[in-house]
């Protein structure tokens, strides 16, 4: 937990779709809106490109939270990718929750290319949540923790 290690800073992986959310992140940047540097963005062609293994691998290698951002339902560049992603991620998150992994470590948010402010706000909130949860211990590989 963060209380045990005062130097701990969360690592957040954000999978952002190329067409909406990545552009939204760009807008947040060019609009000089603040969001924590703890968020590492990985650009994907569509939110439905996110294989569940990507999320598990992020946790394995030390991520404390994983957020997936895509176009709003109905606005997918590929018409329906985010609809599929919505079901898949719901099921995956539910399974992780069932295994006792903290449910707040995973999140999905729809962010359009025009929503720079929403992107910044979402990231600020998410980092805040992960701070309160502390370090990810339940779903990380201890071999990756050794320095």
């Amino acid at each position, binding site marked *: 937990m963060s209380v045990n290690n005062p130097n701990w800073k969360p690592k957040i992986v954000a999978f952002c779709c190329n067409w909406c959310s990545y552009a939204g992140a760009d807008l947040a940047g060019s609009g000089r809106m603040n969001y924590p540097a703890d968020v590492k963005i990985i650009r994907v062609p569509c939110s439905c490109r996110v294989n569940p293994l990507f999320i598990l691998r992020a946790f394995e*290698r*030390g991520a404390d939270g994983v957020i997936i951002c895509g176009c709003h339902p109905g606005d997918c560049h590929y018409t329906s990718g985010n609809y599929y992603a919505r079901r898949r991620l719901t099921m995956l998150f539910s399974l992780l929750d069932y295994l006792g992994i903290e449910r707040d470590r995973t999140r999905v948010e729809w962010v359009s290319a025009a929503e720079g402010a929403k992107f910044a706000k979402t990231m600020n909130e998410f980092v805040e949540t992960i701070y309160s949860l502390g370090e990810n211990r339940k779903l990380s*590989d201890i*071999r*990756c923790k*050794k*320095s």
Partner: protein
Amino acid sequence: MRKFAADQLTKIISSISTPVYAPVEDGSMVVYDRYEDGMTLRLDKVGTDKTPKDILFPQWENLMHFRMEGKTIQLTEEERAKEDYVIFGVRACDIQAIKVLDRVFLADPIDTYYAARREHGTIVGLACGEPAKSCFCKNFGVDPAKPDADVVLWPAGDCWYCEAYTDKGRALMESWPTEAADEAAVETIKAEIAVKYDALPFAKLNLNGFDGDHLMEKFDSPKWKKLSMPCLGCGSCTFACPTCQCYDIRDYDTGNGIQRYRCWDSCMYSDFTLMAHGTNRPTQVERYRQRFMHKLVYFPSRNDGMYSCVGCGRCIEKCPMNLNIVKVIKALGEGDSND
């Protein structure tokens, strides 16, 4: 020959100053684990779900770690075992299995990881008062009434008979509160075990022809195809087996270095001994044949007739599709090879 009262058993185990590994309950299973007060000891269980192999040759172990420091590679080798320990309550078949492992790991080049653990261990054997119906150890020269261990225990209801056979064993037994006992009582127990064993369904199998001289005949047998047909290619039999010793060495990228470890491998797997040109056992027929040929033909032909099956019966218990080595012996041992 010495003996102690049955109620002294847990006290004796608790009094041993080194770590003790013993068959204990883990949920619905019985496994060899480090014994601590409060655990449920299961010395009655023949054919524990996991074997004492877990202690001498664990499913995985780290070998070394390397990382880049500037332009040099820093290599840290894993330390070898240096703490003495006791494995308590090992059956005759599992002790024979350890001798099979010795043949592999203590032959040149010596496996120093295994050798260190072997050297620091003292084995307390346990005679099989009630052999299970899947047992067939005597076929492989194992006597369930007389495990070849440092110390041997014989169950006699209200007391345990015990005898030390090595210096390690004598040192261990020194502090036990035992009293002198009559040799004849143990001989009676041994005779009873022999009678119980002889009544088992697989007590006597025909192993004629399972040797190097009949290698090609067994290898080319058309029966492998049918025998292997239901095999799923899972590793249950290999991982439950007390003698299976094949392993793989793998590197794990930790992000800040490489952790090299070894782990059990299974000849049932499609990527077992995979080479640059591909695999030399492309279907489950060849993989299945490999497992049994290794145990019954290749190994004895290179190790003075010592089979690498010990008749513990675990593959009979564990195979999801009820395949096992007894079926193979019966199918391939009949008729033509009885010369």
